[in-house]
Structure formats: C-alpha cells, structure tokens
C-alpha cells in the first residue's frame, strides 16, 4: 500500500459501539462516514468508559497515488491493512465488511454460520445459505413484519448451549433486493445508496430500535429453514430429515472443521432440537406469510405479531 496519508484537515472522530457480543472502537476523520454510522447505530454507542475493545478500527481517508485518482478509504485494524483501499464514498460498506472479516477470523469462540437469524418470541429461526440464496432479503422482510433481528448473515452460537446470539446490524441489500424490499414495505428505513461496491449496488436496512435494545438477549433455536429463491416458484416448505439437515447445516457453518468435535456435537444438537425444512420461494410477501404462519403453529412462541 503506497498511498500516502494526507494529514486530515478535520479532527479525527472516535466512538465506541456495542454490536452484539463485540465492542468496537471506530475512528475516522471522514464526517460523512460518521453521520452514516450514527444513522444506523446511534442507539449502540457507549458514552461511558474506558472499555476493553474487541476491535479498534480506523477508517483512514487517503489521497490517491496520482492526482487523477480520487480519495480512498482504507480499513485499518491493529495497524494492519488487510484490504485494498476503496473509494472514499464507500467508507461505510467498507467498515461493515471489514468488521465481518475481523469477526470471521477471530471469533472462533463461537460457532459461526452463513445464515440469517431472527427471533420470534424467545425462539430463533435460522436461514442458512450462500450469497444469493435470498437469506438477507428474507431476514430483512421478516424483521419489517415484527421479527427481532439477530443477524442477516452471521449466525453466532455458543456451542456449549447452542444459544443464538444477536448481532443486529445494517442489512446490506444488493441490486434487485433493494427494490424488492421497498415494494414489500415502502416505509422501510434504508440508508444511503452505494452505487459501485464490489457487490454491486448496495443499500442497508436500518435495524429497528427493539432489535438493538435486545442485542444482549439470546434466542433458543427452534426452526431451521434452508431458503432457495426460484423465480416464479410457488412457496413451499418441505421437511428435511436429520441427516440432510446436519449435512447442509455443517456445510453452511464456516468454522465447522476448525471447531472439530465441538462443532459436530453442536450441529447434532441443533438438528435434533429444531424443526428443519427446505423452503422454495419467489414472492417475498408470501414467503414471509408462510414463515410467520409456521412460527405461529408453535404454541411456545409468545407475542408473534400477526
């Protein structure tokens, strides 16, 4: 990285916020970036201190190599710069993806799933899937209908208790999903548009106040749903047997091999205690309806909004 640091004319701002189990410091002299952070996470900021931090992140604004290159944002953690600089206007998505990287590479105290996770009452719904399976969009829609957001992408579980831990953050919606969510709920609170990220056009759905307030309250996993978006398909839930569910869940657990026997036992426990389904869908509104109906069948789920 040869980009030279231009001494910032503005003072560096600094805040500390809680995101689920992690406490993060964010520093930057980029005022626009801080405004966006505040839009999403004002409720999570800690004003007391001093605090032990999981991650001390700096988003550095640097001048490009040649005068023709526009300013860039550089993600820095512990003085390391793991990524190529991004255009300065993409500071917020860079921060979000950088934070994901920090968690993915260090949080092996937890079982980590590629999954959207939401809670209905005290019970958790896990929606595993690769990028493009529709899990983020489904999670977003479920939350707009009253489910509590745990995470749109990063299912975090304590392996010893298989409890789901919340980490409610802005949900990145890509390309057509943005319109799908706006159609689903015209009042959906969306952040700024980032037209040119490496994932395409991105806007983030702001987590609701309730989800943020309960971000230290775990959920007990109850439903395991493998979503598959298929254009024009009729929404259908198909029960999965334990072995298939185990295989697919392990496949979607990105530290499964690393956690060895602990992961083996945790995944086994999860497929035994959850109702497991594969779920094909094409229309967001019908999909949410079906999933909410599934949750309502369970008498243990209290206070599920209809």
């Amino acid at each position, binding site marked *: 990285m040869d980009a030279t640091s231009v001494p910032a004319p503005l003072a560096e701002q600094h805040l500390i916020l809680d995101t689920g189990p992690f406490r993060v410091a964010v520093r930057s002299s980029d005022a626009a970036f801080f405004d966006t952070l505040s839009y999403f996470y004002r409720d999570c900021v800690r004003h007391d201190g001093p605090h*032990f931090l999981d991650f001390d992140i700096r988003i550095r604004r640097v001048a490009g190599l040649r005068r023709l290159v526009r300013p860039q944002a550089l993600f820095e953690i*512990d003085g390391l710069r793991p990524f*190529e600089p991004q255009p300065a206007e993409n500071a917020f998505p860079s921060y979000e993806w950088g934070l994901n990287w920090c968690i993915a590479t260090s949080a092996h105290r937890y079982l980590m799933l*590629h999954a959207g996770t939401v809670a209905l009452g005290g019970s958790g719904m896990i929606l595993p899937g690769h990028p493009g399976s529709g899990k*983020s969009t489904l999670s977003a829609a479920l939350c707009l209908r009253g489910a509590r957001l745990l995470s749109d992408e990063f299912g975090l579980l304590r392996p010893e208790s298989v409890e789901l831990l919340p980490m409610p953050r802005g949900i990145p919606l890509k390309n057509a999903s943005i319109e799908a969510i706006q159609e689903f709920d015209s009042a959906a609170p969306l952040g700024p548009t980032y037209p040119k990220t490496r994932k395409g056009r991105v806007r983030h759905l702001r987590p609701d106040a309730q989800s943020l307030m309960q971000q230290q309250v775990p959920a007990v996993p109850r439903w395991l749903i493998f979503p598959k978006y298929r254009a024009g398909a009729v929404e259908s839930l198909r029960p999965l047997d334990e072995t298939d569910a185990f295989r697919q869940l392990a496949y979607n657990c990105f530290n499964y091999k690393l956690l060895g026997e602990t992961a083996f036992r945790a995944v086994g426990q999860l497929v035994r205690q959850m109702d497991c389904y594969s779920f094909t869908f094409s229309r967001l509104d019908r999909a949410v309806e079906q999933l909410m109906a599934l949750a309502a069948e369970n008498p243990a789920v209290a206070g599920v909004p209809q």
Partner: protein
Amino acid sequence: MNLLIRFLREPQVAADWGAEQWNAFLPLARSAGLLGRCLSLLEQHGLLDAAPQRLVDQLQGAVNQTRYVQGQAMRELRAVAGIMAREKVPLLALKGVAYLAAGLPPSGWRNLGDIDLLVPEQDIDRAEHALLAAGWMASAEFDSYDQHYYRDWMHEIPPLVHRDRQTEVDLHHNLAPPVSRIRIDAASLWEQAETVSDAYGLTVQVLSPPDILLHNAVHLFMNDELRGGLRDVVDFRDLFEHFARVTPDFEQRLLARSRLLGCDRPLYYAVSTAHSLLWLTASPEFLAAVDAHAPAGPKKNLMAWLFEQVLAPQRLSLRRSDLSNQLLFVRSHWVRMPPTMLLRHLLHKLFKPRKPPLPTEELPG
C-alpha cells in the same frame, strides 16, 4: 518494556490492569502469536476473573484455532510416519510437532504452520520419492535456484504438501546448514534421540531434551529473520524450566551437550535473551558458564540490543524494528553462508519476481 513482556515475565502484574492496559496488550500478544500461551498463563495464575470476559473469549477463539492446526499437524505426522515405517526410514520430529508428539508443556498452546521432520542424510532421497509416490507434492513452484538453496545449502528438501490436505511437510537431514559456521554432527542427534507414541498408533523419535533446546537456539538465532521469534524465546524458557524441573543435572547435561555439538554461541544468545527478556530461571553457575561464550566486547551489547528491538518492540510496526530486522537478516545469512554465496543469494532474492498480492478475501456480506 512493553506490556506483553511484562506479563510473560510475571503474569500477576495483570491483576491490576484496567481497560487501557488490556487494549494495548491484546494486539501485541496476537502479533507475537502468543494468544494461547497468554490464556494458559491467565489460567495458571488464577487471573481469568481479573481479565475482561471479552478478552478471554478472544483468547479462547485463538485456542480453538490452535487445537485444529495441532490436530491436523499430528494427522500429517501419522501419515508420514506410516510411509517411513514401511520404507524403514528412521523418522524424527522437530520443534512444534515434536512438542505435541512428546506431550511437552507447549502442546497446551502452541500454534504451528507446518511440520519439521528429520531423516538420515543417506535416506532423504528415498524418503522424498516415497512421499511423492504416496500423494505428496511440492508445495509451490521452486525454480532451480530454490532447489539448489534448499537441498545443497539448507539440507532440506523443498516443502511438500499432500494433495488432499494443507499441512506442509519440511523434511531435513540436519539442523543447521553445512555452509554455516555451526556444524552439528547429525549422527550424535540420532544417538540420543527418544521414541514417543500416541493413542492413534503413531511411533516417532524426538530429540533428547538438551538437543531440543539447542535446536531451538540454533533455529532462532541462525535464522533468516527473527520476526515472530518471541514465541521461540518463550518456548525456550518454558522448555528449559520444564526439563530443569524433571531431569536431574539438566543444566550440566545441556552445557556438555552444547560443547560437544559446537552450539555454545547460539546457546549463549538463547539463554541471555530468555533471561533478560523473560526472566528465565536458572542457576548463577549455569548463567556464568553460558556467558563465557558471549561474543567479545561491543558486539555483545550490539547483538543484545538488536534482538530486543526485534523481539520486544515498544509498539507494533515501528520503523526501528524494520532496520534491526535488516541487520539481522544480513547477519544470519552471513552466519549461514560464505560471503561470495551470500551476495549471490541476496541478489537473487532481490530480483526474483515478487508473488502477486493476496486477493481480497471473500467476506460474508
């Protein structure tokens, strides 16, 4: 003196730490590869409650990762040992994987990237061919210069990896390159070696306790770069103190062995560094005997200063640390190779096309 060094010397200092100290401590421990060691020190000294729960969770995450790489290293060792047993090639495990196989204290926390193994010089070609025939392959593209460097100067074959797995295997036939000033009699290592086995049918040899320490010393102080070396100094201290506890007359045996194998200078560096940085516990007689092999006059202080700059920097990524690394890099190659060879090697390294930078990782989201 940075917080990590203070903690490693005397873990109890952490009982009074506040958020600020823990925040400074974690990145130092991570960069030195010592997260697992620090967790076990916190446990041993009853400090788990004094440390922030979040910190303990991070350390636990690191230990989970370590357990995995340890398991994979042992798996690889078993696979290689099976082939060598079939070929009747004696096999000896070195460094991290040896600590695991022998159940030595570092097996509780030590990370490792690859496995280092020793076979007799006359068997190394046969061993290599047997591994290649059984599914191992070269771990990277090695040009003829690299091949020459590894085989003729370093006495090892270029690293191998099995096509179905990721753990690299480094096969050596001696501990220090023959072109360096240190000439170790490999036959003597084998003579003193001990046999260990595990619950899954592994049988392998490991160096005798004094030789384990001498290898650590030679490897660390006659190496290309000291960077990351604080972990090796911690290993030296932990292993020395362990052997001194369980083996009678260990200090005498170590001194005698060092004299026999011609490792007195690296032993001096290892002991003096472990003593000054990490407060290694040893008898005054032992320390004096080792000190007799220090380099003369100003070089002694210069080397101590250089090692400290590299191993215990005040903050991460300090420029002075880079300069010290460069001096040490030149020095360690000078130790390894005669000057004419050194120049040729450094020139080749300078002009070799650099590997392309790592692609940005695919992140969730």
